[in-house]
C-alpha cells in the first residue's frame, strides 16, 4: 500500500483503501435447495488531494496500481474543493469483530442449519413456500494515507434469514426475518418461533376502516420513522443548508423520552469498525438526548465546513451513522398492546423509505399489519397505508417505547407506539 502512495507526485496527498472479502452462502427458495454461492471480492480505492481538490478512483482489478493512480490524477483538477487533508494516526477503538468460530463452520453445517430452518416452517404449514439461507463471510480492510495513518482490521460475518410466502387465491402473505453479526449467533429457535408466530397471527384477514389510530411500530420499521432526524443531523445536509435542524443544537424538539445514540464501537456488531472510511476513530455519539438536539453526524469535509471535528462517521458518500440506537422505555410491548382499545401493530411496510426526509412526512404501504381490539390481536389488515410526520408525532404523539429492543446489524430499536397515525384504505 505504502509503495503506491509513494508513487504519487510530491504535491499530491493520497489515501488508499483496500478491501478483500470472501463469502460462502447456502440458500433455499420455494422450500427447496436453491444454490451455493462462493464469492470473492477485491477492491482498491485511491483518493487524492491536489491544489485543494479531491478525486477518487477505484478498481477491482488486482495489481492495477498504475491505472488507479492515472485515473485519480487525470480527474483531480475537476474535483471538489476541500480545505482538509487526510488525518494522521490517532488512537482507535478496540472493537472485537472476529469470531474464530465463524471461520470453522463448514458447508455441510451451513446446509444442515438451513434445512432445519426450512423444516420448522414447512412442518408448521406445508403450504408456505419457505426461503432461508446462511452466509459466512470474512473481510480484511487496510487503510493508509500520506499523513502517516495506517490501519487494518479483520472482520467475520455470520448472517441467516428465514421467511416465506403463503398464497391463498389472490392473497399473498409474505414475511421474513434476518439475523446478522460478526459472531456466531445461533439462536435459530427464536427465529423459527418468531416467523411461525407471525404467520399464525396473520392468517386471518379482518376488515378495517380508514381513520386515525394508535399504532405500534415493530423495531425493524422504526428506522423509517427516525430517518427525518438522522437526515436532518447529517453534516452534509446542514452544510448545504437543506436541513430543517440547522442551528438547532441545544433545542428541545422531541418528546423527552427520545434519546438517540450512534455507536460504531459495539462488539461483534455488523456495522462496527475501529475507524471510519477516512481513518477517524469511531466512537459513541449522543445525537439526541431527552428530546434535545446534541450532536451532528460529521465526516472530515462537513466537520471542517461547520468548524467542528469529524465524529468518525465518514464514508465515501458523506457522513452516515454506524449503528443508531433509540433508547428503550420501561413498559413491555405486550403491556402497551393490552392497553389499546383499537389500534394496529405494523411489522412490515413498503415505500416508507421514499419521499423527502426533510419534510418529516413518512408514508408507507402496510404489507404486514395486525389489528388490535380490546388489547388482543384479532387478524391481519390489507390494502392500507400509514402516514405520520415524524417531527410532529415524536414530539406530540408518542405513547410508549417498549423495554424490549431488537438489533438488526445497523440499528437497535424498541417498539414505538404513536397515537394519531393516519391510516388510509378503501
Amino acid at each position: 500500500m505504502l509503495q503506491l502512495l509513494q508513487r504519487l507526485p510530491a504535491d499530491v496527498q493520497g489515501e488508499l483503501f483496500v478491501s478483500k472479502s470472501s463469502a460462502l452462502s447456502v440458500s433455499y427458495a420455494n422450500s427447496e435447495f436453491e444454490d451455493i454461492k462462493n464469492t470473492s471480492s477485491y477492491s482498491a480505492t485511491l483518493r487524492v488531494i491536489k491544489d485543494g481538490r479531491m478525486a477518487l478512483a477505484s478498481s477491482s482489478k488486482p495489481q492495477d496500481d498504475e491505472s488507479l493512480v492515472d485515473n485519480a490524477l487525470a480527474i483531480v483538477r475537476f474535483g471538489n474543493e476541500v480545505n482538509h487533508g487526510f488525518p494522521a494516526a490517532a488512537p482507535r477503538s478496540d472493537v472485537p469483530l472476529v469470531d474464530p468460530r465463524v471461520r470453522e463452520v463448514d458447508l455441510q453445517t451451513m446446509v444442515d442449519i438451513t434445512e432445519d430452518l426450512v423444516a420448522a416452517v414447512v412442518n408448521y404449514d406445508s403450504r408456505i413456500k419457505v426461503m432461508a439461507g446462511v452466509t459466512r463471510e470474512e473481510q480484511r480492510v487496510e487503510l493508509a494515507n500520506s499523513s502517516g495513518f495506517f490501519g487494518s482490521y479483520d472482520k467475520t460475518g455470520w448472517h441467516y434469514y428465514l421467511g416465506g410466502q403463503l398464497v391463498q387465491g389472490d392473497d399473498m402473505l409474505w414475511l421474513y426475518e434476518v439475523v446478522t453479526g460478526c459472531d456466531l449467533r445461533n439462536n435459530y429457535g427464536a427465529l423459527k418461533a418468531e416467523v411461525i408466530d407471525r404467520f399464525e397471527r396473520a392468517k386471518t384477514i379482518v376488515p378495517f376502516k380508514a381513520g386515525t389510530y394508535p399504532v405500534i411500530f415493530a423495531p425493524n420499521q422504526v428506522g423509517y420513522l427516525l430517518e427525518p432526524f438522522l437526515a436532518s443531523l447529517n453534516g452534509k445536509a446542514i452544510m448545504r443548508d437543506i436541513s430543517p435542524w440547522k442551528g438547532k443544537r441545544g433545542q428541545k424538539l422531541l418528546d423527552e423520552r427520545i434519546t438517540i445514540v450512534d455507536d460504531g464501537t459495539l462488539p461483534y456488531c455488523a456495522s462496527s469498525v475501529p475507524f471510519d472510511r477516512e481513518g477517524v476513530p469511531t466512537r459513541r455519539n449522543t445525537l439526541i438526548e431527552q428530546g434535545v438536539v446534541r450532536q451532528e453526524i460529521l465526516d472530515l469535509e462537513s466537520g471542517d465546513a461547520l468548524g467542528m471535528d469529524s465524529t468518525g462517521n465518514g464514508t465515501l458518500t458523506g457522513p452516515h451513522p454506524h449503528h443508531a440506537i433509540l433508547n428503550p422505555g420501561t413498559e413491555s410491548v405486550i403491556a402497551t398492546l393490552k392497553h389499546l382499545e383499537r389500534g394496529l401493530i405494523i411489522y412490515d411496510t413498503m415505500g416508507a423509505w421514499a419521499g423527502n426526509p426533510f419534510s418529516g412526512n413518512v408514508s408507507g404501504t402496510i404489507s404486514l399489519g395486525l389489528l388490535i381490539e380490546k388489547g388482543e390481536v384479532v387478524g391481519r389488515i390489507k390494502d392500507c397505508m400509514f402516514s405520520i410526520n415524524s417531527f410532529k408525532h415524536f414530539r406530540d404523539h408518542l405513547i410508549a417505547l417498549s423495554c424490549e429492543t431488537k438489533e438488526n446489524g445497523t440499528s437497535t430499536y424498541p417498539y414505538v407506539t404513536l397515537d394519531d397515525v393516519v391510516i388510509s384504505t378503501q
Partner: protein
Amino acid sequence: MKQLLRKALGLAVGKVDYCEIRFEESQILNIRFQGKGLDRINKDVLYGGNVRALSQGGWGFCSFNDLADLEWALAAACEQARFAGSRKQEASRLAPVPVVEDEVRPVYTLDPRAVSVDEKVRILTHYNDLIIGYHEAIAASHITYIEKVTDLHFANSEGTYIRQEKLDIGASLGATARRGGITVQQFVGRGSSIGFDCILGVDDDIRKACQLAVESLDAPQVQAGVYTTICDPAMAGLFVHEAFGHLSEADDIYKNPELAKAMTLGRRLGGDILTIYDTGEYASGRGHLVYDDEGVATERTYLIKNGILVGRLHSRETAAVMGEKPTGSARAINYQFPPICRMRSTCIAPGTSTFEDMIKDVKLGVYAVGALGGETNGEMFTFVASHGYMIRDGKLAELVRDVQLMGNVFTTLANIDMVGNDPKPDDSAGGCGKGGQSPLATGAVSPHIRIQNVIIGGAK
C-alpha cells in the same frame, strides 16, 4: 478471451450438466454536484468474472477478480453444483436456445468516450449553475451522472460465445428548495444505452423542475383518501414496473403452484384497453439488451394483451420448468451475481384517450406526476410521485406534495379505465432492486393512464 473461456469450460465436461462463464471489465465515470459546486468525481474499474454450474438440478456459483483464478473458480462452482445436486437429485432443466457466436456493440448516437471529461464537467456545471441561480429559495442542487461502458464476455458449455459492449448512462438533475422548516425536492431524469446526447438540451426541463420546487414550498400535503388518479407517463411507467412487472418475473412463480394458479395464462386482469409488454428491443432505453446474461437473444415479451395475461419473464430454467419459452430476461447487475429474472423496458401500449378525455369527468381526483420510486411485495405495491395536482370538477386545481399511492395489483389493474394516446419513455438514474442486486438498469415507456379508487396516503 474466447479461447481462454472455452479451454476452461472444457474442464467441466463430464463433471456437471451445464456450465457458463461471464467475465466483464467496466469503466465507470461518476460525477456528482450537491450544493454550489462539484461534490464528487470518480473513475472506477469493475473487473471480474464468475462461473455458474448446474448438476442434477443444483446450482453452484463462484465469482473471482483475477483471471488467473478462473480454473479454481470453475472447479469450485462445479463441486458446489454437484453438492447441491446431490441434495436435489433432479434432472437439470434448461430450456433449449440456439448456440450463438456473436459480437455486438451499440450503434452510438454519441459515444461518451468521444466526449472529454472537461466537456462533461462543463455541461453539468452549466446545469448546476442554472439550478443554483434559479431562485433565492433554491438551497441546493443534486446532480448525479453515471456512465458505465462494459466489455462483457459470455461462454457456455453448449458452445455459445458472445462478446457485448454495453453502455449505460443515468442522470438525475435536481433542485432542493427550502423555506423555514419546509424542504422540497424536484428532479429531471435522463438515461440511455446509446449516447451521451441524452443529457444535452435539458435546460427547459431543469427550469420547470426548479419552478415546481419553489411553488411546492407553498403547496399543502395531499389529503389521505381514495381518489380517481391520473398517472403521467413517468408514474404510469413506475406503476407497471412495480405493480405488475415484478409479479411477471417467473422465478417467483415457477415453483410456487398457488402463485402460478393466481398467474395462470389466460386469466383476465384488466380491461380490453390494457396491453403491457416488456422488451429489450427499445434501442435507446436503459433496459436495452441484445442478449441476456444467459446468452439468450432478447425480444418483446407480451405480458398482458387486451386485458388477458399472456406471458411472463423467464430464465432458461424457469421456462423449462413451466414448459414455456425463454424470453431473454435473465439478468445480473455485475459479475458478482448470478442472473435472475428481471425486467428490461416495461411498457404500456398506447390507447386512444387524450388527457382531456381522462380529466373531464373527474369530480375529485389526483394527477400524480413524476416518479421518485416504488416497491412491491407481489400482491401490494406502493409508488411515490414527485408532486401532484388535485383534480376538481374536471380541471387541474392546486399543486400538492408528498403524493404516495398504494394498491393491490389485481384490483388496480382492473381499475384502469383509460389509457392515453401519448406514450413517453422514462429513463433516469438509479434502477431496479431484487434479490440483493441493485441498481439494475431498467426503463419504461407509457402513456397517461387513469385508475379508479387509488389509495393515497397523506395528511388527515
